């Protein structure tokens, strides 16, 4: 009886039909171009607003978490427990003078932050946050997301070069070397999930985890891929313990040493949103995205889990991974450059290749947990 | 006459990009610049494959595979070229192709 009831609930509540904003735009394009333009504008405004709000929230959370890891309190003055500190900082950054160094390459100096923020936005629009909350759902989503993330590092290289400053240049070169190296590991662990799910489309990858998330359906392989992804994407984000491109004790800020005001805030925002994207991607690929915690066959349990809305599931998982990344940041010291490269080329890369091979074997033999 | 892109529009576009690349290969002094011009050539060749695939043999995918191969070859070429430039720069302190003429008799 109970089982039947929850079965009904699943049928009514969790009809996971994917309607993204870009689908609506394409539909409207056939009928009314103005409506399509409206949808496109809505999407842009939504993404822009979401981007800045999320950035400010993440900065606040980072400061608070960092403070409590270090026996401090963090921002406490502006608003309740410093909630409005990020707003105050944003206003301060907007009002600051925009300085361009005298001998800098002006054109490149001005467009570098734009590159960074565009890359971030392009990555953000692909994340499926709930069945209906995804701006674009490309069928090559996984490839696209790792492709656009390279624009960001191009922006960093531009910034470092055009500042005409040795520290910026060093930081940029470190960023480039680090990115190219760790991109391989990220792609290898993305490929593992692509093999499991049999699709490059992010929404389909989420759908494929209806009976269980890949991190434990693909047992050891999924777990290894998850950790390789976490480590390598932390390195790609230039976050500690891999923050050599902006190691402030050596490079006084690295590639963004010469930036100030709004342009600096672009880099800053891009960095934090990239952290969100990486976490959301890890949640989507390995932890089922917005898919509730399901165990194949147990309808009652699954029905109970479906009561929690999918957006909340996504937010919870992403928050968990963001917290994990912050936790790592405020625990470990920074690596040296040679250690960084050794970790990638002598450890993560072989592990990634072996793992990919194991994943292929797993897919052929269908030895997942819950193979139905 | 229609402005919506047809086969000849696409072909002219890729040809223009190719001839710009030829100009660059012939006139650039910096070796890295020459490499970039070669990338332009390769890119427009890959585009041509896709154009013909799209317009002449739509149900098949061979042109796309050729484009993939071109991209892979371009990657290999860029890696080798960069290694060569770094090695040349280390010994000659320049990458100006008009001055790297030791092999000339």
């Amino acid at each position: 009886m109970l089982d039947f009831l929850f079965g009904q609930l699943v049928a009514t509540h969790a009809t996971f039909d994917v309607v993204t904003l870009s689908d609506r735009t394409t539909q409207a394009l056939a009928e009314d171009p103005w409506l399509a333009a409206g949808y496109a504008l809505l999407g842009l405004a939504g993404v822009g607003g979401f981007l800045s709000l999320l950035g400010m929230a993440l900065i606040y959370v980072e400061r608070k978490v960092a403070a409590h890891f270090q026996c401090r309190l963090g921002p406490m003055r502006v608003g309740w427990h410093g909630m409005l500190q990020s707003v105050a900082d944003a206003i301060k950054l907007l009002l600051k003078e925009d300085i361009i160094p005298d001998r800098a390459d002006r054109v490149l100096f001005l467009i570098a932050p734009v590159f960074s923020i565009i890359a971030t936005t392009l990555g953000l629009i692909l994340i499926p946050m709930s069945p209906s909350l995804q701006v674009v759902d490309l069928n090559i989503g996984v490839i696209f997301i790792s492709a656009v993330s390279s624009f960001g590092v191009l922006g960093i290289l531009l910034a470092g070069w055009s500042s005409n400053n040795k520290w910026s240049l060093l930081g940029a070169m470190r960023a480039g070397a680090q990115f190219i190296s760790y991109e391989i590991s990220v792609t290898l662990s993305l490929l593992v999930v692509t093999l499991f799910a049999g699709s490059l489309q992010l929404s389909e990858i989420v759908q494929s985890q209806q009976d269980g998330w890949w991190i434990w359906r693909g047992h050891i392989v999924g777990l290894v891929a998850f950790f390789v992804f976490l480590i390598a994407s932390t390195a790609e984000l230039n976050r500690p313990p891999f923050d050599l491109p902006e190691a402030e004790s050596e490079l006084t800020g690295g590639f963004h040493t010469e930036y100030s005001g709004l342009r600096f805030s672009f880099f800053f925002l891009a960095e934090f949103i990239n952290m969100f994207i990486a976490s959301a991607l890890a949640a989507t690929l390995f932890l089922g995205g917005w898919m509730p915690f399901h165990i194949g066959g147990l309808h009652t349990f699954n029905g109970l889990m479906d009561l929690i809305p999918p957006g909340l599931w996504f937010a919870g998982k992403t928050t968990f991974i963001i917290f994990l990344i912050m936790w790592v940041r405020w625990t470990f010291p920074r690596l040296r450059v040679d250690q960084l490269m050794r970790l990638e080329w002598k450890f993560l890369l072989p592990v990634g290749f072996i793992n990919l091979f194991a994943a292929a074997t797993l897919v052929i033999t269908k030895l997942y947990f819950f193979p139905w | 006459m229609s402005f919506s892109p047809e086969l000849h529009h696409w072909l002219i576009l890729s040809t223009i990009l190719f001839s710009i690349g030829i100009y660059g290969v012939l006139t650039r002094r910096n070796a890295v610049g020459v490499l970039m011009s070669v990338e332009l050539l390769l890119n427009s060749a890959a585009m041509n494959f896709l154009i013909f695939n799209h317009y002449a043999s739509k149900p098949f995918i061979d042109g796309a595979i050729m484009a993939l191969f071109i991209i892979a070859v371009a990657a290999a070429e860029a890696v080798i070229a960069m290694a060569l430039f770094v090695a040349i720069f280390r010994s000659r302190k320049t990458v100006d192709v008009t001055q790297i003429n030791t092999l000339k008799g």
Partner: protein
Amino acid sequence: MSYIDPKKSSRSAIEVGGVPVNIVVAPRGATGDKREGLLTIFYKSVKSLLTGMKVTIGYLVRPSTVVTQQYPENRETLKMFERFRGQLRLVKDENGYMNCNGCDFCEKACPNGSIILQDRRNSVSGKSELERYLWRLDSCTFCNACIQACPHDALEWSDGFEAAVYDRRLLVYTLNDYAGPPVNHIKRFKKKAGTPEDRVEELLATMEPRHQYGGPTPLSGKGMPGVPPLKTD
């Protein structure tokens, strides 16, 4: 466990400034430990990383470990540590009499001349006593030498740390509240004289009040707007 294998280490001698110096270079990996396998290294590193993460999360989940003081709000309840060196202060007993008799030891002990001490002779007892104790906070390094030098335990550190002022000259303090006999003079005078209470009264009458900013300022310059002029004598 031997740390350096003497057979494998290379020896050489160089001469530094006419003195021969032996140099022993220990070979790599000669610390007596076995070379560890890959899995052992992996296990150890993961374990140590997890240990670090356990330590930090321990701080995060226990708010009692927070050491930050919410300063202006908790001004009433804020207590500084016992050994905190805020400002120099003269020790006073319950009647408000100080221990200092102006013996000059602290002034001589001060390495950077932050203490300037003037004494005078008491007209009643004929003993030397403190006229004015000037302390320059702006040049003090809080080295504690004056307190160690004091034979009468007349100096101590207070926990007052709110010393910020708008004019540098306001950092020159007169530490004594009064110019006059210290507490042991008064006691001894009582004991020695025995009967006449009026003599003690007379002694106490020689006390003159001193203000915190009442001393001569060693810095030149006119008064700044908004700052009350310093009284100099």
